[in-house]
């Protein structure tokens, strides 16, 4: 085993356990950063996230602790109970964190302003070419709070005249990677997935695109955003924002699959809010 692999395992374990124990001392001015679990499943290792940690440390002058909760809702609760200072949300989780705990939007990738969901079909279970043909099929959503893995796919299905509640057998897999596996292994006929996760899995050769073929791409929507908790010190908020906006380290941008960062605006999430309300997801 190489040294880097050993180091990865050590840091992964340290961070995976989000808490406790006399193993490391508490730092009062630590910046605690949380991801929704999605991102963890694709950007793979915690050690690979070092460019992000470095950027935030440089920008804020604080030590940074990464936390990856086990599910989307936990990230929302964490920003409510001061468990974390800065969190990476999907659109739906952001809207919830904002409504419930006053989380404030900060920055997002240029790409997040025109994001897409992909509908993928299992090669094992016959041909599928349109949303209408989903009637009677088994279908995998990601986490119930996923924007690209649940909210938008449901919206698009309803617009296509397919009711996922009554006309499909649907399941939640918990994350995009699990959806990809469920589809490619034929456990379900089809599924909905975050476009960047799908591309990453294919590029990493974790997923054979022939076994989970894209048959429909959603209309663009606004998605991921970095947000801070309501009462985080404003000078700290400013330095985090500048850190992102001025970031040009290629390693950092590649890690987060970004070209550059732009300021996020709460009002632009109104469309997500309305959709979520209509679908009883808010």
């Amino acid at each position, binding site marked *: 085993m190489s040294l880097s692999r050993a180091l990865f*395992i050590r840091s992964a*374990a340290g961070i995976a356990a*989000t808490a406790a124990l006399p*193993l490391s001392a508490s730092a009062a001015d630590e910046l605690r950063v949380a991801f929704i679990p999605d991102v963890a499943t694709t950007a793979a290792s915690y050690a690979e996230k070092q460019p992000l940690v470095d950027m935030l440390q440089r920008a804020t002058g604080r030590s940074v602790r990464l936390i990856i909760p086990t599910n989307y*809702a*936990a990230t929302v*609760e964490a920003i*409510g109970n001061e468990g974390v200072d800065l969190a990476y949300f999907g659109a739906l989780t952001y809207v919830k964190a904002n409504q*419930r705990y006053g989380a404030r939007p900060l920055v997002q990738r240029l790409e997040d302003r025109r994001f897409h969901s992909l509908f993928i079909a299992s090669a094992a279970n016959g041909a599928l070419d349109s949303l209408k043909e989903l009637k009677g099929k088994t279908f995998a959503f990601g986490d119930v709070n996923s924007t690209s893995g649940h909210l938008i796919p449901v919206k698009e299905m309803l617009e296509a005249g397919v009711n996922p509640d009554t006309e499909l057998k649907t399941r939640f897999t918990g994350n995009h990677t699990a959806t990809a596996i469920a589809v490619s292994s034929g*456990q379900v006929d089809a599924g909905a997935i975050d476009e960047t996760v799908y591309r990453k899995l294919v590029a990493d050769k974790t997923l054979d695109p022939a076994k989970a073929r894209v048959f429909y791409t959603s209309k663009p929507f606004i998605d991921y955003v970095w947000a801070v908790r309501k009462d985080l010190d404003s000078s700290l908020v400013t330095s985090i924002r500048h850190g992102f906006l001025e970031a040009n380290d290629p390693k950092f941008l590649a890690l987060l699959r970004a070209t550059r960062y732009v300021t996020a605006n709460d009002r632009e999430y109104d469309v997500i809010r309305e959709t979520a309300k209509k679908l009883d997801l808010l």
Partner: protein
Amino acid sequence: MLATAVDVRATLDFLRTPVLETIAIAAGALPIAILLGAPAAITIARGGRAGVVLRALAAFVRAIPELVLAIVFVVALGFGAVPGTLALGLSGAATIAKLYAEILESVRREPEEALRATGATATASFLVGLVPAAWPGLIGFGAYTFESIMRAAVIVGVVGAGGLGSAMITSLNLLDYGAFGWYVAALVALVIAVDSASGILRARAPAWMALAAFAIVSLVGIVALATSTHDPWHAFATAPPRVITYLARAIPPAFTPTVIGNAAWSVLETLGVAIVGTLVGAIAAIPLAFLVAGVVASGWVRGTGYRPWSVVPAFVARVVLVIARSVPPIAVALVALAYVGLGPKAGAAALAIHTAGVLGKLFAESLELGDTLPAEALVASGSSGLAAVAVGIVPGAFAAMSAHLLYRWEWNVRASTTLGIVGAGGLGQQIFNAQQLLHDRELLAYVIVAIVLVLGSDRITQLARRRFELRTMER
């Protein structure tokens, strides 16, 4: 050679944090469970109005799925070991209150009453007259609770309370099945260690050793919590208003037509999982119990003869049982999901495996406790060993086996309300989805349904027990 050493060290390294955290959670929860549960048990055993109230309270807390307790504490206290410890401590206290009260009630009271009559104080009479007789039971069930807490630590880990549970979910999300396997193995090792330690304490250790073990475990828990990176005092100070806000948002519970429809279907699914899990587990347990009990191996029914070649199946059966009951059903469900897909099938499979492990052991004990004289007489009069066991042993053990089966059924109903959090169907899945969506009022509605279901099933088994005069404890 060197590479192997590095491998082993790296493996131990990445297991260290979650394992220590799980130990910390369980060790911290045990003193909470005992210190809250034991006085409650004494009050319950004494009877009176306070006893009745506490008994109802304990039954109520036990009916709340551990997952729900964990959610509330995580919301209140943030991530980390502290919320997990408190959630498990509270549910452990309710278990201790029930089990200890049953033990104290089942012990003969004459010695205590005699002491009272001679003018001894109530406390002294209790300590000298009652506790020694109840001692093996108290130790046994204390250790059993510790073991259950350790297994349940996985459940609270799933919602972010740290330890092996969080590590398992994270490793699965990362598709790191190797790490997942190591975490499961580590947990099995922990549970087996607690199991064997409690066996020793129960069988031959003096009382001071059991007390010392308890003190050491408590100390470990307290030190671990006090020095955790999480700031427990700040968390405790800010927790009450958060819990109140959280609960206030959930009232009134949303019993909408949709919720009622979902709940009705989920109750059926939960009961289905519990029934299939219990029955399949019990059926699988029977041959294993016969193997382990030595019906085959040792020939303890005199005259059936000792068969050295059959020691091997007995040993294999024993190992199978230990592993089957050490892995928490939720971990089995996570593995089963990969094979049978999402849904109640995975839940039923997980419960069946765990039930087979637990019932196999208890059935074997029931068989061994029985009187062997009738069987020996049968063998002496020319019947075959197998027939002698069937006619001479099984009927005598039947009552104890049925009692264990009923107890397991209750436990499985509880467990199946929880398994849904990993996608294994039933009420647990509705509870988890409502919590995930942050639909607090629907969450409360499903939790109420789950509590009613558990209390209702307990009530039915209670009636069955009374009707057929079945007791879990031998007396």
